[in-house]
């Protein structure tokens, strides 16, 4: 029990961020019209591609003789980049059409 309490105290800053972000995430998209559900999902999909940063750190820290870490890290960087780039480009393509529409 004490271990758990210690863990919470040690990471209280992070816990605060997590809790505030949960409320913010809900608040921020609360009034989205159903037309935008798909692009919003796609945009959010691109944002969680931020996991790429973890992949870059793993890759950059790997010792040059640890091939397992190098290969897995390399794969992680590629997959993460796919998520980020693909996600943003697809979202942009979807929204491009909305723009055309409102113009006319």
């Amino acid at each position, binding site marked *: 029990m004490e271990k758990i309490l210690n863990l919470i105290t040690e990471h209280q800053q992070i816990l605060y961020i997590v809790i505030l972000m949960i409320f913010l*995430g809900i608040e*921020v998209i609360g009034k989205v019209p159903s037309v935008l559900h798909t692009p*919003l999902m796609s*945009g959010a999909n691109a*944002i969680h591609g931020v996991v790429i940063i973890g992949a870059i*750190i793993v890759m950059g820290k790997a010792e040059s003789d640890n091939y397992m870490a190098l290969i897995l890290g390399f794969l992680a*960087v590629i997959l993460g980049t796919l998520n980020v780039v693909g996600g943003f480009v697809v979202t942009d393509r979807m929204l491009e059409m*909305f723009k055309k529409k409102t113009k006319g």
Partner: protein
Amino acid sequence: MENILTICYLIGSVTFIIGLKMLSHPAKARKGNLVAAAGMSIAILGTIFLYEDKEEGKKLGNYIWIFSGLIIGTVVGTLIAKKVKMTAMPQMVSLFNGMGGACAALISVIEFQHLSQHTLEHGGAVHHGLLISIFLGAIIGSISFAGSMIAWGKLNGNIKDYAYGGQQITNVGLMVVILGIAAYLLFTLTPENAFWFYIIFGVSLLYGVLFVMPIGGADMPVVISLLNSFTGVAAACGGFLYDNKVMLTGGILVGAAGTLLTILMCNAMNRSLKNVLLGSFGGGTKQGEGSKEQGSYKEISLSDAATIMAYSTKVMIVPGYGLAVAQAQHTCHELEKLLEEKGVEVKYAIHPVAGRMPGHMNVLLAEADVSYDKLLEMEEANEEFKNTDVVLILGANDVVNPAAKNDPSSPIYGMPILEVEQAKTVIVNKRSMKPGYAGIENDLFFQPKTSMLFGDAKATLQKLVAEIKNV
């Protein structure tokens, strides 16, 4: 250097929040996406050039690997994203989501190796917080990856729905196994039992597959949205692991927003999340409508359909999934222009969940340059149906099924529908009499004012256009 990186991450976090906010307003959405993308680029470049290890103060190495990975990912990602057809967008989102999940899982695997080798062999105490986030990242990341791949395959038509008895018990059992092993490892980790971690990894992948397998194709958007928020949480685990605030904020933000979006999508279809996940549609619980004898339907010839439409004053087009599959949006726009030339008023009635994802039809018709003011939302459309001469239904089924209003025993009962039966004539274009996604018969097709026009949406529309030109 470290200070500048902190600023980069701060900018990144703020742009994600602003970007997401703007993405939920039609007029600002595109800019919002670019804002988030810019913030992401700053955070990524900052990490590559400015990151320093906390303990050793070392900068990152292996630049060749990092940059070749980034370049390969960027080129392939851009090509796929640019080339994909508008109809295949849902699959695409699912595919990219799976990539993110896999990325999070791989990071956990590498960090676990790192932790089990270094900390244990050098006799240090295991940091429980780190271990928990490694486990969570691996579990959630692999579930998200495996689930997204199955969803992708299903939307592509490569994988069929597969339901079996006791699937819920199996899933709960697997989850218990995963959490059990994780808890066991958390307190007893030694170099000897470290291999159990890979079993967690494998079982999580299996869970992801079994979790999505029985869910019906119509519910895939909801599932993808849910998996999307899973990946967000997996990314946040990485943020905890590296004490990296931008990963943490970005991940949790998407996790929370994604969960709410999932619920909003369910609401738009008037289904509960529980209902979707436990699969009352896809699970094959069709309540005895096989025994219910349907009346007969009547077919209409192309030339008759053309004549009726050309001489009416108002036509309402109801696009559905069939239109999307046949890529018929351009031909549909052609038909609309032709009818307008003949003095017929043409509007589109868009059900919020028509097609495969909410908003799918809007995107698709916009691609074909259909003007925004011609697209009516469900409430507006329902008011106009009684003044409409002809309703042309193109590959839509469940969204016009009157059972949602009249038949409490129907699985889609309570879902808001387009009340097309108020119009004078209804022409339904479908490929066959096969039921739609919900797997239920549609009474509309057997009503006296309804006539069927069988065939592929695009081919039929092309013939219809040719016929109307001759009228």
